């Protein structure tokens, strides 16, 4: 009987259900889309922030004080400590290896360019380089990942080839020497034959002091300086989570003996992609190094990520509120519209509980159907939003499906509760008389 009443209600007057169903579908679609985006936005934005370049700097621990101005190290080559290029693959073996997006080693060599008759700095680095990882695979990385704002006119040097790109300031100073296609001769001293002949393949603009240097493949710099397989500093670009209280405690526990993390705290710190825990893990695989967060980048990123995250959750809550209101309002309307029906039912002896039960069952059925459709519409919407905002579509989260269904049912029920309570006070005679 109950089921038949329900079936009749849907069969007889489907038009009336359309508005509620539409509200449910749209409301739940928006809820799904905003929740999907909010869940994913931290990760997406963190990735976007990597356009700021590296956020970790690795230097030898027992180093002499670098005499570095504007990114160029002016120490003589035989001074200071070096790191081994061969160890770099280990970076992709740490716990958070998938969060290491890229790394670039640097080796600065003071050189003498025969063509200009002057001294300058040759920076050995990778632009695109395949690093062998201990698990047998290769990892492609280099300045293209860690320094995405470097722009080259012409083309980058090929890895391991005798080629170079020249900083734009230097090229402006000696336009005849550093023209594309020219060959320059760079050596450790003025004696000819001690260095390498390099083909100029491009003019690079780094908008840094590196604009005054010559950039060449790391292997070339190693050969000129006589330090094969070595480099001096490493820039690492890692996806991190904004620092919180635990991250700070974990970082301070490294140096301060008074701060001890409990084993659970330690596990939680180690297994969170904080910049301090990633730095710690890099230090473990590259012993004898000093790994430091580039605070300027790391802190700005952390703060903006936290703020935008909070902002987005507030906006998501607002969207959920608006969805709830829309659904509740239409549910309320349907109940009010059917006062006459309620009157007849009550006149025929239906109890308030039965009338309420029928209406609530109807609303819940509608909510589940509307919520299901809304979820898929919302997943599509999130895909589209992700695509247009971040360039890659947001993957649908199936975990949201039951959440959205439950949300729809609860909102629809709450929306019809108030008018149903009023309906309980209807007097059939008054209603049927048409007042």
């Amino acid at each position: 009987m109950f089921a038949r009443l329900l079936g009749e209600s849907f069969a007889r007057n489907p038009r009336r259900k359309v508005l509620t169903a539409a509200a449910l579908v749209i409301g739940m679609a928006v809820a799904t889309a905003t929740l999907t985006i909010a869940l994913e936005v931290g990760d997406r934005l963190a990735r976007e922030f990597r356009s700021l370049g590296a956020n970790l700097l690795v230097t030898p621990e027992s180093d002499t004080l670098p005499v570095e101005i504007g990114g160029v190290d002016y120490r003589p080559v035989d001074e200071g400590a070096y790191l081994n290029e061969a160890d770099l693959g280990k970076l992709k073996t740490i716990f958070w290896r998938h969060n290491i997006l890229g790394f670039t080693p640097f080796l600065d060599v003071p050189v003498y360019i025969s063509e200009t008759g002057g001294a300058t700095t040759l920076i050995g680095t990778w632009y695109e380089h395949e690093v062998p990882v201990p698990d047998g695979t290769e990892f492609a990385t280099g300045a293209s990942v860690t320094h995405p704002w470097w722009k080259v006119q012409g083309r980058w040097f090929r890895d391991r080839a005798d080629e170079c790109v020249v900083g734009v300031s230097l090229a402006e100073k000696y336009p005849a020497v550093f023209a594309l296609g020219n060959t320059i001769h760079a050596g450790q001293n003025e004696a000819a034959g001690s260095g390498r002949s390099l083909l100029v393949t491009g003019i690079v603009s780094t908008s840094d002091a590196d604009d005054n240097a010559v950039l060449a493949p790391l292997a070339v710099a190693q050969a000129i300086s006589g330090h094969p397989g070595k480099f001096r500093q490493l820039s690492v670009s890692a996806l991190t989570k904004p620092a919180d209280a635990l991250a700070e405690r974990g970082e301070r526990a490294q140096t301060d003996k008074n701060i001890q993390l409990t084993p659970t705290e330690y596990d939680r710190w180690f297994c969170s992609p904080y910049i301090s825990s990633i730095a710690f893990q890099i230090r473990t695989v590259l012993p004898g190094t000093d790994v430091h967060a580039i605070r300027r980048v790391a802190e700005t990123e952390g703060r903006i990520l936290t703020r935008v995250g909070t902002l987005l959750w507030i906006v998501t809550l607002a969207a959920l509120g608006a969805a709830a209101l829309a659904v509740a309002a239409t549910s309320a309307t349907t109940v009010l519209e059917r006062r006459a029906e309620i009157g007849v039912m009550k006149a025929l002896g239906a109890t308030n509980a039965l009338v309420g039960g029928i209406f609530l069952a109807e609303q819940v059925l509608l909510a589940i159907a509307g919520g299901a459709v809304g979820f898929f519409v919302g997943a599509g919407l999130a895909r589209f939003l992700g695509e247009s905002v971040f360039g890659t579509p947001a993957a649908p989260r199936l975990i949201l499906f039951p959440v959205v269904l439950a949300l729809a049912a609860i909102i629809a029920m709450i929306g019809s509760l108030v008018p149903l309570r009023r309906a309980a006070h209807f007097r059939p005679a008054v209603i049927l008389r048409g007042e």
Partner: protein
Amino acid sequence: MFWRLVFQLLRGSRGRLGVAILAIVSGAAVISALLDLDLGVQNKLTQEFRTLGANIVISPASGAPTQIRGAEAPSLMPEIEVVGTLQQLPSAQVAAAAPYLYIVARAQNIPVVLAGTWLDQAQKLDATWKLEGNWVASRADDSHCLVGRNVARRLQLAVGNPLELHYLDRSAPCTVEGIVDAGGSEDNQVFASLRAVQSLANLPAQIGLAQVSVTGTARVVEDYSTRLAAALPQYRVRPIRQVTEAEGALLGRIRLLIVSMVLLILILTALCVLGTMAALAMERRKDVGLMKSLGGSISRIVGIFLAEVGVLGAAGGFVGTFLGAALAYWMGLRVFGTAISPRWEVFPVTIALMIVVTLAGALPLRMLGNVKPAEILRGE
């Protein structure tokens, strides 16, 4: 008569109108809050990005900021020219600016990079420096200096220790006022007042480069940089691309995200108001029947209802904008720590939007034209 009818109708169905008003007010509140937020957020985030440090660098046309070794003569700029130009240009967008002179001095017989600058600007230019000790409050203070973390470790310096800097045969004493943890090359440098370094290096009134931190969108920074370049044609003025590019791209994405959310919420609110209005219209069929049988023309009847709905939208929108401004204020405090002030242009936009939505919701009223008085009054 017209307005009396409108108000009678408004008073007559308070319960139903309550739902509609609630929908309109909350819709208007959410929309105006988000509009305020969207306009304010760019400002706030741009300020956050300033912790990335300077975004414009002025340096001599060629050569490194300052040569340290090697055959080439140092390329420097006269301080008066650069600083004077900076002061002449409108400074509203300039958050901080400082000239720098780098030399390689010796401390305890170890070569160390010494930067002469306006120490009072350091805190603003390098907001992310973690400092142990105190900032130097005055740019004229020649007796105090800041040292980088690595320098302090290597030279075994603590806050308050004296530090003797040597260059050729000259020397300058200073007291370590603070130890800088910058997580970058600054950790290997010593910072002293510009004047002290100029006299130590015997380069009076010369600087190697100047850094400027300009607040504002990428466009503002670009504009400022262009004007600066026009005023200083003999030097290189370049925006730091690492900062400006990332900032522009990120801000664009964040705003796009918020705008799309606002649009979604707008659709929902419209739907909500639409639903209640449709219900209201249905309920009014009986009134219409009565009016028609009393000889009211359709246009007049629909006019009355539209006026009713319009009043509702305007009133709801009005109340809602105020609530929304309060909401945006709270959100600003919650998210950014500073309030987001309401924008006047949001008020008319929200109210107009609400009126449009309610009128759209009253579209089913057109059906009232088909109402046959006899049927309605018979109770069908």
